[in-house]
């Protein structure tokens, strides 16, 4: 065995120059996204956005052609370490892109940190990814759960609301979002009188809606996504609460779900780092290109995928394709202004976007931008020692 | 009757109630070593309930059970079995996927369970192996020892039931219709076996085959609707007017 190991090491030593040569070969991008299950459509949107940017660059980034390797993460954190290892150890990807589910992203962050592989998170908002887990090789093109929630807290307080109730699924993302809202709301002089939660993945809200009616708060803040968001918005309207107590939410409440929610979502206010009618030349160009390529309207997930590719592009260009120069890569990304369809943004020291959070209102089938709720909002990045 | 017979199992005023129905009503009986005590009665007379209470599968709602002089009314079935109570079932309850020998060996193992000795091969257990060999031979199944029990004929399965019962080396045998569904030849063989076992055991026999019962039993108890209407020697029972009316008359 020892003999074999020595010969293996020797073989690696010989192969090392070959590996160097790879820096001018294809750039391998490992997409670890959900392609099955509840978040499948989000995974597809992110991939579409990513590919769109790469296509716009002529299929090359930093002078290197892009090769994709895909893994379905099934939104299952218990399989996440194996899945990400597949990309890192088997396929030897140069950069990891993923994922949607926070638990999966946490597992990815650990592997990325341990193996010193570049990781760009295109959605998962877990505060810890750019908080306690922050690292020079970990970037995020999306948001932290704290960001839109904090902005919404400020908005609610500014609108004169004094007493708020929050409601969310009982899981980390929901808790983080609710905390963000509380922070913003209480800073503006409001008070959260009760945090309600539904066990994940139950979507039976009726009991808590009755509770809300009994509490009679000035405003309700909520964090739901996907199927639960659709059901919550419909149930909220059907229970007659929409007329009397304004419902505010993190933007996912009404993103990608408006078709399903129909009239029940009309006029809802949400905050997010993207909106449907920004009407900037940059965004219009993006939307046109996206619609042309995929015969679909883009959403916030597509933008996040697109910007993940931009981050990769900026860094890779700066190191001229040599991704081993992690420090230079990070430095370039940290200094760059990323020209996102959502509006230009920069990355914070912890590598999370410092971005405008928009206040949006549902009009028809669109999340129309009303105003900038919070200008260049940066996540506090608690626990980040970088 | 001899003086001071050795009573191994005694039922004293046993009753069992199912809701409003009194399935067994204050039944008392003694089982002595060296005798066969038969319980007969129509279907639904409460024979099976009685045997289940004696073996401990059912707890009685009234009365008590004594095994070898001890009150065992509150004992579980396994505990009674270990104390020397063996039973066979009306329907075959063998382990069909095991060999005939393994059926008996597993039964014998109950005497020396030693479950903590996980590194020892069960087939290296001298006590259960010896008991199994003996019981297989006694039941006349030696030639079929390595056959899967499920492949035996019906009569052979009944024999295996008895063999498994014997493997635990009981003092008391509770046999629930051991002759059910057997041909004439098989019945004859079984009766020989029972006669042989009789001397060393106290046997309770629940049986429908009247000829066999009157041939082998030393004492017969007749049950109707959960109560004992007659109990005594075969001659006494045969001549009892109540039995003639209630049971044999209908037969």
């Amino acid at each position: 065995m020892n003999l074999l190991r020595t010969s293996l090491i020797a073989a690696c030593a010989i192969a090392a120059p070959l590996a160097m040569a790879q820096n001018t070969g294809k750039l391998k991008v490992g997409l670890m996204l959900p392609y099955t299950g509840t978040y499948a459509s989000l995974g597809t949107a992110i991939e579409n956005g990513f590919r769109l940017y790469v296509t716009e660059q002529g299929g090359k980034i930093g002078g290197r052609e892009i090769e994709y390797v895909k893994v379905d993460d099934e939104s299952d954190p218990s399989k996440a370490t194996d899945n990400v290892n597949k990309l890192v150890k088997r396929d030897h990807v140069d950069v990891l892109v993923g994922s949607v589910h926070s638990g999966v992203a946490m597992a990815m962050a650990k592997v990325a940190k341990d193996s010193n592989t570049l990781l760009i998170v295109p959605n998962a908002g877990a505060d810890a990814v750019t908080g306690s887990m922050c690292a020079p090789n970990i970037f995020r093109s999306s948001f932290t759960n704290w960001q839109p929630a904090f902005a919404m807290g400020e908005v609610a307080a500014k609108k004169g609301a004094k007493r708020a109730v929050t409601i969310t699924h009982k899981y980390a993302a929901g808790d983080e979002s609710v905390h963000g809202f509380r922070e913003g709301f209480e800073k503006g002089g409001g008070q959260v009188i009760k945090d309600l939660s539904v066990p994940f993945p139950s979507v039976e809200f009726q009991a808590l809606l009755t509770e809300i009616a009994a509490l009679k708060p000035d405003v309700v803040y909520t964090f739901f996504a996907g199927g639960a968001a659709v059901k919550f918005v419909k149930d909220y309207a059907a229970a007659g609460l929409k007329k009397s107590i304004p419902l505010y939410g993190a933007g996912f409440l009404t993103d990608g779900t408006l078709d399903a929610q129909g009239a029940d979502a009309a006029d809802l206010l949400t905050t997010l780092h993207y909106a449907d009618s920004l009407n900037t030349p940059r965004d219009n160009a993006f939307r046109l290109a996206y619609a042309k390529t995929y015969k679909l309207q883009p959403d916030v997930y597509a933008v996040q995928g697109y910007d993940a590719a931009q981050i990769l592009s900026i860094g890779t260009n700066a190191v001229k394709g040599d991704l081993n120069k992690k420090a230079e890569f990070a430095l370039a990304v940290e200094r760059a202004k990323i020209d996102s369809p959502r509006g230009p943004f920069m990355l914070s020291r912890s590598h999370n976007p410092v971005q405008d959070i928009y206040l949006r209102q549902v009009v028809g089938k669109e999340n129309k931008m009303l105003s900038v709720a919070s200008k260049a909002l940066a996540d506090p990045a608690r626990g980040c020692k970088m | 009757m001899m003086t001071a017979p050795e009573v191994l199992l005694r039922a004293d005023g046993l009753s069992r109630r199912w809701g409003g129905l009194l399935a067994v009503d204050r039944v008392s009986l003694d089982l002595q070593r060296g005798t066969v005590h038969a319980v007969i009665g129509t279907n639904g007379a409460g024979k099976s309930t009685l045997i289940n209470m004696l073996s401990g599968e059912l707890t009685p709602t009234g009365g008590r059970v004594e095994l070898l002089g001890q009150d065992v009314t509150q004992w579980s079935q396994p505990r009674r079995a270990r104390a020397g109570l063996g039973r066979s079932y009306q329907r075959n309850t063998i382990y069909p996927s095991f060999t005939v020998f393994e059926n008996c060996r597993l039964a014998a193992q109950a005497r020396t369970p030693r479950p903590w000795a996980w590194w020892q091969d069960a087939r290296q257990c001298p006590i259960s192996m010896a008991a199994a060999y003996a019981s297989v031979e006694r039941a006349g199944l030696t030639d079929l020892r390595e056959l899967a029990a499920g492949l035996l004929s019906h009569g052979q399965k009944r024999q295996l039931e008895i063999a498994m019962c014997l493997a635990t080396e009981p003092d008391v045998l509770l046999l629930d219709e051991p002759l059910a569904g057997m041909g004439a030849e098989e019945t004859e063989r079984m009766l020989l076996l029972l006669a042989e076992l009789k001397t060393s055991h106290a046997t309770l026999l629940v049986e429908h085959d009247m000829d066999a019962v009157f041939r082998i039993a030393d004492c017969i108890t007749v049950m109707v609707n959960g109560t004992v209407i007659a109990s005594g020697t075969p001659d006494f029972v045969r001549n009892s007017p109540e039995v003639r009316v209630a049971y044999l008359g209908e037969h």
Partner: protein
Amino acid sequence: MKRTDILFIVLAFAALALYPLVAEPYGIDRVTKIMVFGIFALSLELLVGSTGLVCFGQAAFLGIGAYAAVLLSPQDGPASLLWLLPASMLAAGAYALFMGALSLRTRGVYFIMVTLAFSQMAFYVVHDTPLGGGTDGIYLTNKPMLGTLLDLDRSVPMYAFTFGCLLLVFVFLALVLRSRFGRALAGIRVNEQRMRATGFPTYPYKLAAFMISGAIAGLAGFLFAVKDGFVNPELMSWHLSGEVLIMIILGGLGHLRGALLGAFAFAMLQEFFKSEAIFGDFAKHWHLGLGLSIILSVALLPRGLVDVPQQILLRLLGPRPKPPGTATQKSPP
């Protein structure tokens, strides 16, 4: 057990032992994880295949073993394997004892559902409370050490250690199943009523099986946590309890090698249908292939994958009359 079966098992273990010599780092990692699931499947096989107790909450033991490994590890340095490993198994075994003591009062489908209930309770404790890091999971920062002998942070030692555990568990279970205890469990599976009539107090036997099974699942959980360095509530979810059940049914109930075969086959099938090299863009619909092959295996292999050699012989040679005695099932492995 037939001689060919023993040969198969020996060859399989030999292949596993030699695998790291030829494998890529990823392959070593992957097979390590499959072996962990092999141990997990073996633990369930003791209950389902050998004792006839269909437990639908096995993931709880896995999760408790894994969480124990993480939560009991000191923050400031690596723990010693010598106490952390037994402690994790003990934690899982203790929960199994509790769960078994109550759920063994019920039978059949009710038993299945009560075990599910108890595993869901454990799931919600880690899912809904900050105890184990909540839904985002928790990291194992310092992997346990055995002096300087074993560095479980590296792939090959981890592989070797897992392989050793698997081998030990397999041998242990094989011995247990042929011991008096194991034969009594087999008797309970086939005919519990008869066992009681013969004088076996079946409840403590079943409870002991439950506890052993839980502790072994806890071992799998410990290995999982050490290998990944990350545990998450999903480890306790009913999906995983279901998947491991699927593994052992797929492999073939009543055989220890069936559990191993099932764990490997289940992983390989997923790997195969997820492979973009073979299916291209359709690989994202890998559930379809997996589902169809499971359905096919039910249709063609009534006794699971362990039956494959016999089925092949049957197809090649045509049906043969069985010589008397071949239907015997002397010892399950």
